[in-house]
Every structure is written in structure tokens, then in C-alpha cells.
């Protein structure tokens, strides 16, 4: 009986296993193998094992790209958390009707192409664009800031692109909050800020951490933001991988860079589990 039942289960689960192997494990193994192969003279790869691709990452040119990417990702993540947490928090505290409306407003931009939205930012940020005109009209600045194609422009674009992920994951964990706990904290003598820091923040930490992962990891790889708003002046790991793959046609090196990024991601998720003590991610995942 027992064995029969187990066989039955395996049959039901088979499509899931097949899917996982074909679409997740397969490509990953392919990439891992590729990262240890040698680039051919003109096109494709040669089947000879090498660690050269990983050694190259340590060269200052590429290593700096990693360092700069991480710096930008930290900045972007911090900004996204700073703006996204309060937004998600207050959204969850709205009355249900208006909450639905707000959720819709947050989601709507997802239905537009993200490239389109980035071009929108060009109009805002370019020299004598909307932002410059506004600031000059308000006599805050006397000449155009020329933000487009600078580091801040890339940061703004990334914060904009990634903010919804933070808002939604914070929202989903704040929405689950048992507010009686906050009342209990107040009842026992905590000020509103004290109750937030000792009760609300720790209990919504899973949402915040999910938001951090959903922001930090992509912000290292959103090459098109860096390309469009940074004008090729700011090179991120994502841009580097794309360039190596699509322009230089160095597939093994691109694969090695990707493997390192995946390792960083894995470390972050491992940290997440350590911090929140849970295996599942809040909301989005």
C-alpha cells in the first residue's frame, strides 16, 4: 500500500520535476560548465578546462566593476527601503477600498514596457528637461543640472524601477500584522516609536528583507537602466555580462561573471533565512 501510494505521488509530481530540470537545473549546469571552458579564436567555445575566466574577474578593470555595482546596489537598496517601507506600511493601513486602489496604481506601470518608462525619465532628466525647467522656474537652481548620463540618473532610474517590489513585499507583511500586538506594547508603556521599533519592525522584517533581496540582486544586473540613463558611462556587472555575451562573444567569461552573481544571490538568500528564521519569502516569491 505504502509503496503504491508513493509511486502515485511521484507520477503526479513528475511534470514539476521535468520542468525544474529542463528550465532551472539544465541552464544552470550549462552555464557552470561553460564558465570553465576556453573561448574559441573566432566564435563559440573550445572544450578545454580552464580557471582563466574566474581569474580574469579579479583583474582591476572587472573587479572594479563588481565593486562599483555593489556600491550602487547598496545605495539603490537603501533608498528603495527608505521610500518603499513607509509606502508599503501606510498602504497596508489604508481602509480596504482605498488599499485596492493604491495597489492598482502601484501595479499599473508594470503593464507598460519598462524601456518606455525609462525613456520617460530621459525627458525628465535631460539638460533643460522637465526637472531642470522646474528647478529653474522655482529659482532653486540658476542653470541646468544636466543629471542625465550621470551616476545619480542611474540611481534614480533604478530606485524607480525597483520601488514597487519593496512596496509590495512590505505591504504584504504589514497587512498580516496583528495590531493588537502594537496595542499591547503601548499598553505596557511603549511610545508609538518604541512600539514600532520593538514590535512592528521586527515582525515585518521578512517583508523588508524580501524587498531588499528583490532590489539588491536586480540592481546589479539592470544593464539597460545603466545604458539608457547612464549613457555607457556607468558600467555594471549586468552591462558587463551583456557586453561580453552579445558584443565580445566571450561566452565562458560571461558565464563565469553570471556564476559569481548567482553565488552572491545565494549568500543573500542564505542570510535572509538566518535573519528571519523562515524558509519562505514574503509575498512575491
Amino acid at each position, binding site marked *: 500500500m505504502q509503496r503504491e501510494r508513493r509511486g502515485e505521488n511521484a507520477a503526479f509530481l513528475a511534470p514539476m520535476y521535468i520542468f525544474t530540470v529542463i528550465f532551472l537545473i539544465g541552464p544552470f549546469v550549462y552555464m557552470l560548465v561553460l564558465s570553465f571552458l576556453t573561448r574559441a579564436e573566432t566564435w563559440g567555445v573550445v572544450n578545454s578546462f580552464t580557471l582563466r575566466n574566474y581569474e580574469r574577474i579579479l583583474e582591476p578593470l572587472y573587479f572594479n566593476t563588481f565593486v562599483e555595482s555593489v556600491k550602487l546596489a547598496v545605495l539603490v537598496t537603501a533608498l528603495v527601503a527608505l521610500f518603499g517601507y513607509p509606502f508599503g506600511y501606510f498602504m497596508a493601513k489604508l481602509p480596504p477600498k482605498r488599499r485596492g486602489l493604491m495597489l492598482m496604481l502601484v501595479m499599473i506601470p508594470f503593464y507598460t514596457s519598462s524601456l518606455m518608462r525609462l525613456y520617460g525619465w530621459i525627458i525628465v532628466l535631460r539638460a533643460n528637461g522637465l526637472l531642470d525647467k522646474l528647478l529653474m522656474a522655482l529659482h532653486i537652481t540658476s542653470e541646468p543640472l544636466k543629471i542625465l548620463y550621470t551616476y545619480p540618473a542611474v540611481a534614480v532610474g533604478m530606485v524607480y524601477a525597483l520601488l514597487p517590489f519593496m512596496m509590495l513585499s512590505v505591504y504584504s507583511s504589514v497587512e498580516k500584522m496583528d495590531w493588537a500586538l502594537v*496595542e*499591547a*506594547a503601548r499598553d*505596557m*508603556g511603549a*511610545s508609538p516609536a*518604541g512600539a514600532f521599533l520593538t514590535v512592528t519592525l*521586527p515582525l515585518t522584517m521578512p517583508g523588508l528583507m524580501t524587498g531588499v533581496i528583490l532590489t539588491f540582486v536586480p540592481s546589479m544586473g539592470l544593464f539597460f537602466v545603466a545604458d539608457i540613463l547612464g549613457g555607457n558611462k556607468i558600467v555594471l556587472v549586468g552591462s558587463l555580462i551583456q557586453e561580453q555575451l552579445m558584443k565580445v562573444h566571450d561566452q565562458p567569461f560571461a558565464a563565469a561573471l553570471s556564476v559569481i552573481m548567482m553565488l552572491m544571490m545565494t549568500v543573500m538568500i542564505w542570510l535572509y533565512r538566518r535573519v528571519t528564521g523562515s524558509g519562505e519569502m514574503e509575498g512575491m516569491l
Partner: protein
Amino acid sequence: MGEPILELRDITKSFAEGTVLNGISLTADRGEFITLLGSSGCGKTTTLRIIAGLESCDSGAVILEGRDVTDEPPERRGVNMVFQNYALFPHMSVEANIGYGLKIRRRPRAEIRKAVSDALEMVRLPGYERRMPSELSGGQRQRVAIARAIVNEPKVLLLDEPLGALDLQLRRQMQIELKRLQKQLGITFIYITHDQEEALNMSDRIAVMKNGVFQQIGTPSEIYDRPKNAYVAQFVGSANVLTGTAEYADGRLMLRRGDVRAAVTDPGTGIGAGAPLHVAVRSEYIDFLPPGTPGFAAVVKEKSFAAGMLRLALETPDGAEIIASRHGIDSELVPGDAVTFGFDAGHAVVVEAEDAT
């Protein structure tokens, strides 16, 4: 005793859905156990939340130890609450939960540890400091919630249906323990329940609440034996309320229903003959009379057995439902039988009509 610690002065509160509190006043003495008794939606939880400062009132005042705290935030009131679903912090150990209030007030660590272990001793859970709330049973969580409140030495302890989630046996046991704790600590308890047995068992005084008004405030025996109005009689004593007109015969007050009348206890308030009269008679005092004796006619509708008593639901010709209860498991009466019933005048208490509000 006798020294007022908490006073509610004519408190009103409305939400968008309507008025919840309709001007309630109450004075609680030091060390007193007061129960707010009422069915759900009567405003008892709102009253408690207003005392705690978790809800503001539209008008009226909350006075604690002679100080008006109506506009004070909860953290500056010196009262503590045991929440209905305990509201233990799931991310903190039992020790951190109980010590929370003391830690917020920056008391030395050694003092907190001592106070926590004393409080756990008090609620009979010694050695549970390291446990997490998720590792505790319902009854244990309840005890931790109580320990977390009393450790702060509140002037008044507010308890919002603290035993509601426990099974019957545990509830009985906790009733006794709570009462013991209250005597031992000498703290004023304001206790909420919808269970009249619990209220009668534990309280020094009971405030019966309905539609945001205190229907009657009094000791358990006052509430039980001398209900002020029909609602209190029905809710607390599960009494039948018979409605008719007042009549006097040989100087005795009588209840007339149709062509039958019966003597009742005269409250001495000078009820005029012909005035509408409401009389409460508890189910165990409904007597069945031999056929042919003058009495009120009714038909047996339903028969059931509960809590060691046989319960007979009767219906009078004018549609009133009367419950009669008897010891024992069965009777010869079956649904459909016509019966005649009456009651002893000493057990028929005149009550006011239920408030229209």
C-alpha cells in the same frame, strides 16, 4: 476597599456604524473585582479600550486615582490589559514578553529578571522563561499574558474575555486562579465576559451592559435575585419574563394575563392598577399545576436535557415562550401536551420593561 481608584463619568462613543456607548458611569474601588457582562456588541470591549487609552471617547471622562487621564496616551495611564487573544509578542521569549514593560521603563536587568521569575511563579509557570509563545498551550499563553500585565503593578488590570478561548474545564480552573491572584495582589480588576456564570462566580460587582448602557450595577446576588429589568433577568438568571397588567386583590399585587391572575412580590413602588407589569420568574420556579386548578395555560413545545436539568419549552396562547426546568432526566410530558403552570409569589420579581435604547 471603599477607596475609589477608577471613575468613568458619563462616557459616550460613536463609530461610523453607530453609537456604541450611551453615557456610562462607573466607580471602581481599590481591590475590587468588577465584571462588565453583556452579549457581543453591547459596548463592553469599547469601554475597556477607553479605560486603557486605546480608544478615545466622544464625551465624558476617565479618572484614575483622582487624575483625569481622558486625553493621556495608553503608555502614561498606569493600567494594563490582558488581551482577548493574549497578544503575546511572537518574536520574543516568555521572559522578554513579561519583562517588556519593565525594559521599556529602563529598569535594571537584574530587577527585571527577578520580577519576571516572581510573576511566572505567581501564575504557576516557573522555569518557562526561555520558551517561545508558539511552544505554549492555550492555557499557558493565558498565564503568560496575565504575568506580563501584573508584572507592571498596574493600578487597574483590564481583562478582555481572558478565558474565552479555553475549554470549559480549564476555564473553571482559571476562574479560581484569577480570583486568588486578584485577592493576593489587591489590584482592581475590570473583567469582561459574556458568560453569566463566570461573572457570578468571580465578581464583587457586576455591571450588566446592553446597547451601550449599564442596565444594572450590583453584587452578584443583587443582580441574580433582584434584577432591575427584563433584560437583566433574562440574561443573568435565564429567567422567564411574563408580561401583563397590574391588579390588586386583598391589597396584594397581582399579575393579570387574560382571565388568569397570580400574586407576585410587591416591590413597594406603588404600581397603579391597570399599569403594564413585567414579572421575572426563573425556570426552576415554574410550577406545573394539576388540571382544573386556576393557572396559566401553555403547550409543551420542546424537551431537552442540559447541565443536569430537564428543560421544557412551553408556549402560551399569546405566543410567549416560557422555560421550565426540572431535576432528573425525563418527564411524562411530551411535546404537544397542554399544561397549566403557576409560580410562588415569592419567586415572582417585578422588573422594569427592557430599555428601548
